[in-house]
């Protein structure tokens, strides 16, 4: 099938590419841009490991076709902070022990950032409701909630 030209801004940088129409936004990020921070856990929109922010909306990037994201702005975990200046959520996740194997962490962080952007001081119930689509098998979620609340308070 013929490839299609797309232009997508990722973490503030514009990328032009030719992609198959079937390429998902997740595969575009990982295999075209080598932004492997966004993880593939199920590829069916059920685990949340591939969560990114697309034009201000939180989405599972495995369920979005790259061609449908043409002209859009995407934020991935790599865009949250840099080595000298990690995002406060990234620092809090580290300090509170909210990370174990770390495979869910990029998606958790993106979902948390979007939540705090929308509501800087969410209740525990709101945190749980918002992050219920991000699965974690190692850590039991409690330290993640703690980390988010520590940032929300400040």
């Amino acid at each position: 099938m013929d490839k299609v030209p797309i232009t997508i801004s990722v973490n503030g940088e514009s990328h032009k590419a030719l992609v198959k129409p079937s390429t998902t936004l997740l595969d575009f990020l990982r295999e075209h841009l080598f932004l492997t921070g966004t993880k593939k856990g199920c590829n069916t929109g059920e685990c949340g490991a591939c969560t990114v922010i697309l034009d201000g909306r939180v989405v599972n990037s495995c369920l979005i076709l790259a061609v449908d994201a043409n002209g859009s702005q995407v934020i991935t975990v790599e865009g949250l902070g840099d080595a000298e200046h990690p995002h406060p959520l990234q620092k809090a996740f580290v300090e509170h022990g909210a990370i174990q194997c770390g495979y869910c962490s990029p998606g958790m962080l993106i979902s948390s950032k979007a939540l705090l952007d929308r509501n800087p001081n969410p209740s525990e119930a709101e945190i749980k409701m918002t992050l219920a689509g991000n699965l974690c098998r190692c850590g039991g979620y409690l330290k993640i909630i703690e980390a988010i609340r520590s940032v929300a308070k400040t």
Partner: protein
Amino acid sequence: MEEVYHIIGKKVPRVDALSKAMGDLKYVSDLYLPGILVGKVLRSPLPHGKILHIDIFKAVRLPGVKAIITAEDTPQRKFCMNPAWANNMILQGEKVRYVGDQVAAVAAIDEDIATEAISLIKVDYEPLPAVFDPEEAMKPGAPKIHQEENNIALHSVRNFGDVEQGFREADTICEGTFYSPAIAHCCLEPRGCVAYYDLSGKLSVWSTTQTPHPLREELSEVLGIPQNKISVFQAPMGGAFGARMGMDPIDGIAAVLSMKSGRPVKVVNTREEEFLSSRIRYPMRVWIKSGAKGNGRLIAREIKVVTDNGAYNHEGQYIMGNAGSKLAQLYAVPNIRYDGFLVYTNNVYGGAFRGYGNPQITYAMEIQLDQIAEALHMDPAVIRMINANKPNSVTASGCKIGSCGLTECIKTVAESSKWEGKKRAKKEEQFSPRRGIGMACMIHGGSGVKFFWGKDCNFSSAIVKINTDGSIDLLTGSAELGQGSNTTLAMIVAEILGVSLSSMNIINGDTDTTPACLGAWGSRQTFSAGNAVRYAALEARKMLFEVASELLEAPIQDLQARDGNIFVSGTPTKYVTVKQAAAESWRNRGNPIIGKGVNVDPWSIQPDLKTGYGNVSSAYAFAAQAAEVEVDTETGFVNVINFWCGHDVGKAINPLGVECQIEGGVVSMGLGYALMENLILEGGKVQNANFADYKIPTMLDSCQVKTYFIESMDEHGPFGAKGVGEPAMIPSAAAVANAIYDAVGVWVTELPITPEKLLKAIKEKQTSER
């Protein structure tokens, strides 16, 4: 006087956390090499069938396909963690034995082409009669799955004491049957492997393995390549929980695809493949009978277990041994009989999964103990304290219990949960939801066990090198699965050498550079690898001190290491830096500082193969957990509100890491095991091979978890530490079940405790009371 440590016992963020938070750390699935191909596996749609013919004519002609392999392209050597039980192959040539069995594989330039090529391979099968229920499969005349005489892969009997006499002396006896279903590990990262067989004949493998050194042995055996031509790298991975112990066929498949194509090949399971063809927790049906004296002392226990081995041997034989041993270990019971059958079926085959047979048995044992307590009108916490093992005792099965804080675990949990008051609280019969509280305990090896690979084999080794700038290379063959072992091991080295964690370069799970270690299983990394790095660090420190002693003109025994300095005790101003001493040794004495440590684990032995008697672990971990639940009697829905977890961890090297393990064990796994998870197989085919239909706990299912460390300071553990990885989830399901009983007066003996099952049990109880 308690020793004052500078880092041991402090809550330390894990060393790899920031690179994980930044999305920078590269997992197996993130690895790309120039020319890398995508590998895909053709899996059997039948539970049992003869392979008559495989036609690759169309597939091989699809542009972009670089290699197609069937059994003929492999050495067709059988494998298993224990070669004596080997009956699996990386690709099946004659028969398929479960839905998901691997038949052929393709490497192509991209995933779409690889997937299309797989669909173009035509396999003619002759379907064979299949059997899915292990109790059916045991019967004479059942379809035979392997060449062996029948489908019984193992039948073992253990007798300690005189169980008949024990039951005769008992004042009360309970018996019942419990069932634990197939459970999927659900590691967030699917299993994957990148293999590259280069022109020099070297095979490099990056695998999601928790046993890098044993994996190299297995690959060598199955591929017929010498071990020095194979490099296994344990890449960072998204969870393992036992699933990545031992070789998976895709490790071998990726290697053969690379050998055939001459290019690097990446094979990563889809989520569906994870559910269809990854290991599972062995399903067990457990009949158990316990007898106690009127004062609550358990006097006899008998158990019969039938375990579904699935289609191939992997770890079932060992799991049976471990499961059976718990009967004789958790409490001081003098008379024991265990009778276990491990049976082949045409279902997906099992493997290690957090607890290694122990969660299944603990569910049965700990519910039954509550039933006995009720029969004797005793408090469940009290009967546990009466029977709890004591330090420095020997069980009927020959286990030498050294450090043991089980009684303190029970007391702590009872006090912190306000147990007595809650147990006394009168239940309002009409009120829904109804609250209840329940408790369960566990014992588990806290040092690994001695029954794999050989008769005396539970070792780890490590090397500590100190560079001329004072920075440190820590080489360990252990595996970091996400559990935090690298941080724990680095903390041990940092404590001994008096240096910071940031001075450490941790190299782990790389068979080219790290000394041999059996890997991460059996909750053994803290104890076993911990001791190895401790010995290595002590040897390096001895060399440093010898140099410093001369430089400072002070006796070695007066030296201490802290804050990057080596100083004379009591005179902190008289010091040399670690950097100065290391550089001096390297530059002016030609003696670079290298410490080697091997923990051969001399305190345990492989139990006698016939009787099962012997001290299988060097240390034992204990825990008591209490759960508080609310049960909606109209819907059967269980809301878990609180968990109190008392864990005898010996010594918490990194309390933050231990909390993470316990919270994760209880919430992310324990609650799922108790209330939700069941891999549904019909006709051998998994019916719920996705996260929409196979539910695991989400953040909405989380509950409050309070953790309490009982530090029993094990005499053999590094700084007194014992393992905690598996113990975290072992008693959780039984605690929930007992709490539900406290709330509504029914036990659901078949896991998971779904609303349907619980509602049915509540209705039956109401009907029988009318």
